[in-house]
């Protein structure tokens, strides 16, 4: 099914009650050069419901917004009448620490949520970029996570229940507040990674993880990225169970400007946690596998922050960036592909890999260099071809705004595009939510 742009845009100011349009339009609401006519920040789920029933009735194109940390993701919007900020939904609903679960409204920032949980030595096992700004709802709508995903898997695996306001304004829930549940379809899956295209996440219940008693971060550096990836695979396949394994190439180290990183070498960083005796043994086993130093707690925390934020904070925000998901053993080969292609185009990539998770992030700063859009497109195409033959796929996280309409930033649908279109048609038949922005420009 092809989506027509919504009907000639109505000015939201004429149909939405004034009290709802309670925020000024600012430059930060701009998405890919498009600015909304108005901004709403509902103060409650009911208010959001009411608002969306109005926007739906009037075919207004809306883009939900959490902390705005990953607002540049996706394909170009086809239309953009109204920005809806979720940060007004900021209640910590409950922390049932004895149950190891918590329920929170979607507009709460990840840091605030983690701080509350820390009172009972628990945490939510997701670590998205810029957690001080990023909201729970936004982090889930994007669906990616940071370095900790190796041990704790994807954000979707922490969600046990969800409330969503659908495009027509109805509030629906799925799941519950229990950790084991097969009652009806697992509807939350539609919205995690769905970039707010089928509904707006308003409340989420999570299963939590107890904070490990002690943590350690080991760091070592190598002459080549291959060496660091090889060592990472050895750790991945050993008895050691790290929380995170990350390799950072010299260029990315340079961009991160962290004192802990050797800027001309390729770094391997391993985060371990647990009880003391177990941790001591894991540290020993790691030391047998690669030459490394232990970092102190403060430096380590700062470094892990830089790693999570890579590509999203001001200093590392690139012009062009891809996020590759592939079998872990193929990351070395893919790194080489990216270096070679970059040499051909006289560009320098910065690489961060989460080898155990099979994620490779490559970012380029074009800094005004006169690159043709056809060159970029060709390079992305080549990276995609390579990853596809290795049974992986390439998501374009960052792309120069003028060339956005050149390509679909999502890749490799396994023939499932038809089903995705059907989903969009069922849940957002008028195409009011983030029109054109998601996979296949739906």
């Amino acid at each position, binding site marked *: 099914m092809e989506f027509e742009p919504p009907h000639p845009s109505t000015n939201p100011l004429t149909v939405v009650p004034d009290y709802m349009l309670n925020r000024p339009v600012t430059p930060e609401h701009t998405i890919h050069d498009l600015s909304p006519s108005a901004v709403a920040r509902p103060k409650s789920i009911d208010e959001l419901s009411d608002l969306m029933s109005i926007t739906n009735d009037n075919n207004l194109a809306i883009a939900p917004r959490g902390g705005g940390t990953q607002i540049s993701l996706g394909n170009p919007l086809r239309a953009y009448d109204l920005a809806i900020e979720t940060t007004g939904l900021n209640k910590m609903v409950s922390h049932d620490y004895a149950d190891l679960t918590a329920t929170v409204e979607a507009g709460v920032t990840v840091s605030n949520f983690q701080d509350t949980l820390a009172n009972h030595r628990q945490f939510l096992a997701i670590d998205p970029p810029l957690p001080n700004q990023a909201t729970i709802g936004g982090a889930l709508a994007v669906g990616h996570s940071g370095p900790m995903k190796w041990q704790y898997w994807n954000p979707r695996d922490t969600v046990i229940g969800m409330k969503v306001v659908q495009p027509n304004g109805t509030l629906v*829930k*799925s799941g519950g507040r229990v950790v084991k549940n*097969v009652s009806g*379809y697992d509807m939350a899956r539609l919205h995690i990674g769905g970039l707010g295209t089928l509904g707006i996440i308003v409340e989420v219940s999570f299963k939590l993880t107890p904070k490990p008693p002690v943590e350690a971060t080991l760091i070592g550096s190598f002459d080549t990225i291959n060496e660091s990836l090889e060592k990472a695979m050895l750790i991945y396949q050993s008895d050691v169970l790290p929380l995170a394994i990350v390799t950072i190439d010299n260029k990315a180290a340079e961009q991160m400007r962290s004192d802990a990183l050797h800027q001309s070498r390729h770094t391997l960083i391993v985060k371990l946690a647990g009880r003391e005796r177990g941790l001591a043994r894991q540290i020993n086993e790691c030391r047998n596998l690669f030459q490394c130093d232990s970092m102190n707690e403060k430096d380590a925390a700062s470094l892990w922050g830089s790693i999570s934020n890579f590509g999203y904070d001001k200093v590392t925000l690139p012009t062009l960036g891809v996020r590759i998901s592939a*079998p872990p053993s193929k990351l070395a080969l893919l790194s080489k592909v990216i270096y070679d292609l970059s040499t051909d185009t006289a560009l320098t990539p910065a690489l961060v890999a989460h080898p155990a998770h099979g994620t490779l992030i490559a970012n380029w700063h074009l800094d005004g260099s006169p690159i043709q859009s056809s060159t970029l497109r060709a390079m992305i195409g080549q990276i995609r071809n390579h990853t596809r033959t290795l049974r992986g796929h390439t998501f374009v996280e960052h792309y120069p705004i003028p060339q956005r309409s050149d390509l679909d930033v999502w890749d490799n649908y396994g*023939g499932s595009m038809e089903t995705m279109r059907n989903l969009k048609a069922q849940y957002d038949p008028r195409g009011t939510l983030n029109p054109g922005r998601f996979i296949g420009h739906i």
Partner: protein
Amino acid sequence: MVSLGKPSTRRLIEELKSVVGDEYVIHRDEDLLVFEYDGSVDKALPTAVVLPADTNEVVSVTKLAATYSIPITARGAGTGLSGGAIANHGGIVLALTRMTRIIQIDAENMTAIVEPGVVNIDLSTATAPYGLYYPPDPSSQKVCTLGGNVAENSGGPHCLAYGVTTNYVLGLEVVLANGSVQWFGETTREVGGYDLRGIMVGSEGTLGIVTKIAVRLVKIPEVVRTLLAVFNNVEDASLAVSDIIAAGIVPAALEMMDKLCIRAAEASVPAGYPQDAGAILLVEVDGLSEVTDEQVADIIHVCNKHSPIEIRTASDNIEREKLWAGRKGVIGALGRLAPNYYLVDGTVPRTRIMDTLKGVEKISKDYELPIGNLLHAGDGNLHPLILFDERKPGDTQKALEAGGKILELCIQAGGVLSGEHGIGMEKQEYMPLMFTDDDMTSMAKLKLAFETNDILNPGKIFPTGSSHVAIPQTGAISRTGPDAFI
């Protein structure tokens, strides 16, 4: 119930035979009888049973079903407990038990690709030489198929620390109702677009037929330590459960049995449980030896606060098997106490276990039916077993009503209708206890996004009868079309 008429049925059977071969189409009355049941209460006769050899044959059968407008119900080993594999609207039962190939084990990247008929335990057996295994372990794991596990999002005693099926599925090859073949996800950890693989898991065969499954595997833990703690009553045992979790320990498994179950288990598989025991906890931790030693010590410390009668530990496999023997045999053993039992499946927040069990006890008194309690306590997943004798007039109805009351109790405690058995035919009428009309309409839209003719496992999950919710029921969608829901 779909009725084709004799000539069409005969033609259909011939066409099915031309797809999969004569031997693999079952259509004689007495042979169909053995496909009318699964592990649950319900029964319904299919029109034919087809056993395809591969994805192409599944596609052909699906297209035939579309042509004849008759339902397809996929079936694995038929061990499900909510009627998911029963063709309650007739039509074709698609038994996937011939598709048993393990297509790939990628030890380096810790993934495997299998066909849906592979038996759960067979995958772990095949990957053991690489030091890897597949953690979800439903109690039927020696028999049940991975395809069935995907359909029901199966759990098991060890899902407390390790998670359920959906946490392990990376990708699925799916045949949709229109016969198209799509991959949802693959072997990579992240997927682009909507999480279709996540949506498929637990959809009870209503959205598509899974023909290949890519899963991730995990390293076999270095050591496994098992601990059995005997308490005077379920209150003490429940408090110990909460305290273990609150102490920041997430054991691999945390199981509970009450007095009735202990007595039954002891009569059948003597494991040496004290006869005056009011409740037993079975706790398992695994991982590095240094860590598990400390965890066992901590768990003993916590249990000791709740006046245990006895605590035993096992560190080798034989002792471990002994501790587990009573737990694993208890359902069959309860079958010896009464001619019939109704196994209920509900989940409550872990902290509400004690209240809920008290409520169950009251229901047992009110209905004058003995109820044994078996719990995946760490998950808050209750399995009350209501004992009855169907030969006594009215007993069956009483048991069913008592089951309904228990589910209401779970919902009131902030819990859910099913922890691991699924909704299927068994609990579809209870869905309104948990979900609003809007919630269910939203689920119905999901079904409609996958198919509009209601061919795949119709009459499951959604409540039947007089509900005013616009939800898929046989024929309803084809009559009204998808627009009815917009």
